[in-house]
């Protein structure tokens, strides 16, 4: 019989995950799929996940696009503005590898050349289910980081 330790399950996530979305030069395909998560069909807000308007409120950074030179500093600054612990989720092939743009003269990316990436969600664009799966994996990584911070004395109430 499958047993769920509800105390442990709830302990993993002290509060809902909030994400900030940064388009670092995407064609908008992935961005549309991220927005689709908010529609009644997927409705991620029922899990408490939501997109926030500032990185200062975010636990996760969703990055789409292969990171153009113009966006490099901005992406770094956005990541730096997020409170610890934080995770980076790359949504789409462009952010993961550059995809069809990988030889472009105007790229500093892909994202892992700029930021430490925790979760890759592949696809061009990835399906909303895949993004939800990526966020679920990110929650586990976030929990690991939170525990690490608590052990090292880094105060956090995330």
């Amino acid at each position: 019989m499958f047993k769920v330790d509800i105390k442990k399950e709830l302990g993993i996530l002290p509060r809902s995950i909030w994400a900030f979305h940064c388009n670092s030069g995407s064609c908008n395909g992935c961005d549309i799929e991220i927005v689709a998560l908010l529609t009644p069909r997927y409705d991620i807000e029922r899990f408490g996940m939501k997109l926030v308007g500032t990185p200062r409120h975010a636990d996760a950074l969703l990055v789409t696009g292969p990171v153009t030179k113009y966006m490099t500093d901005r992406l770094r600054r956005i990541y730096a503005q997020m409170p610890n612990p934080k995770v980076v989720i790359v949504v789409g092939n462009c952010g993961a590898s550059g995809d069809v743009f990988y030889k472009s003269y105007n790229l500093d990316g892909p994202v892992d050349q700029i930021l430490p990436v925790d979760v890759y969600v592949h696809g061009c664009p990835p399906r909303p289910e895949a993004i939800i799966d990526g966020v679920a994996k990110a929650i586990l990584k976030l929990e690991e980081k939170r525990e690490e911070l608590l052990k090292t004395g880094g105060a956090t109430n995330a």
Partner: protein
Amino acid sequence: MTIGTIYTGFGYWNVYAWVMFFALGALIVLCIRSTGRNDYEKGTYQDEVFYGGNPVPQDGQDLAVPASSSYWGFTKAIASFYDLLVGVHTGILSDYMGLLIATAAVISLLILL
């Protein structure tokens, strides 16, 4: 001098009531503020205003959006009227006195005729 209550035709004003409401408001603000996160690393980007990922301008003027921006279309539509009004407001007292006398003269004429 005694501190009392001022009654008007519409209500009253009392300094103690005002201080009490101010303290109550401050308490509510502090309660809301205490729910925020306090683990930001001071002196880093985490402490800074989010400005769309761009560097925050050091000059406050570059950050400010003047209230007049909200009715820009209105002022643009009747710009000739505003230009006239702005032109009249020279900041020189004798000009204002002259306008007052001229306006009083015109109103007097209208009343008398």
